[in-house]
């Protein structure tokens, strides 16, 4: 069996429950669609669809201020919309956990996705976010759990980048 035949989302969702994630914010995205679906149908999680990704960074910061844990889900392009908003996370040292699905990285067919895809990790790191990248679906759940520990217990901003090898959705924009 090819490692790509297995989907990581159910296990990640279980980790969300274990860590007491109460808010999830996202702009709909193909690569994270199954996870978003699981969060949407989970009564313990308030999931919020955004008009633009930067809103999600602010919302998750607010969730922590209000005593809840949140997770921010975005496509790599969305990272480029959040860089300034992440300065609040850095200045306030707010525990922050994000999952990023990659475009413009692995077997990308749309040239326009490539500039941002190639800049995603650098933009996150320049914003003070610790970045871990998963190349195989089997890696994702454990990495998510470790990074949530780092975020919520270590009090840091952390992102798990799910590579396009895992999320590849073919030709579509």
């Amino acid at each position, binding site marked *: 069996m090819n490692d790509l035949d297995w989907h990581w989302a159910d296990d990640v969702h279980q980790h969300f429950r274990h860590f007491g994630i109460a808010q999830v914010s996202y*702009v*709909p*995205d*193909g690569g994270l*669609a199954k996870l*978003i679906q699981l969060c949407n149908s989970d009564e313990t999680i308030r999931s919020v*669809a955004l*008009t*633009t990704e930067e809103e999600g960074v602010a919302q998750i910061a607010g969730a922590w201020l209000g005593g809840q844990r949140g997770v921010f889900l975005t496509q790599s*392009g969305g990272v480029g*919309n959040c860089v300034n908003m992440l300065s609040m996370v850095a200045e306030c040292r707010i525990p922050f956990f994000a999952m990023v699905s990659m475009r413009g990285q692995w077997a990308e067919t*749309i*040239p*326009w*996705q490539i500039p*941002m895809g190639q800049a995603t990790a650098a933009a996150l790191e320049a914003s003070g976010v610790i970045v871990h990248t998963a190349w195989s679906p089997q890696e994702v759940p454990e990495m998510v759990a470790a990074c949530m520990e780092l975020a919520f217990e270590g009090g840091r901003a952390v992102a798990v980048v799910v590579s396009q090898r895992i999320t590849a959705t073919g*030709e*579509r*924009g």
Partner: protein
Amino acid sequence: MSIAIPKITLARRPVVTKILESRKDELLITGLGAPTWDVASVSDHQNNFYLWGGMGGAVSTGLGLALAKPERRVLVFTGDGEMLMGLGSLATVAVQKPKNFAVIVLDNERYGETGMQKTATASGVDLSLVARGVGFHIARTIWTEDELSEAINEIYSAHGPVFYDVKVQPSDDPMVLPEKDGLTLKHRFQEELLGRKNYKV
């Protein structure tokens, strides 16, 4: 809210086809995703500039073009998700008041490229009211064939900026993929508009 919401009857491809039947030398900017495939499905054109990225930037790209070429009409075709991501750009357009500018949102109330999740327009956010709130001369929601027919004249000749939120059914039309190389799209667009000698680089 208990207001009766009209049923969506229009299909996106026929809407775009009908609007483009009246096209002459208008310049088109298309937002990423389905609006690009829709416009390409009618016919490719040197004056179509297809955005394949930069979500939220279609209206602003059209504004820059409209300001640079006041003698040519600029039409922006985009989707509701793309429009929502750059909502503030409507306010910026309304302040500039380009008279040669029309925005057409093909509003299927869904993010079509990522799995048809609902957008905010499915939950009561009214894009044409937003456009009116920021100060567009004309801002309408189009539900029917008749309203579309009436709007076409305005799209091409009314004093701009004008805005149309065309409610279309969520559908999965065959993809018609036009040129995607950005440099090629830029060069062919400018070649017609400016002539080879008048643009550099």
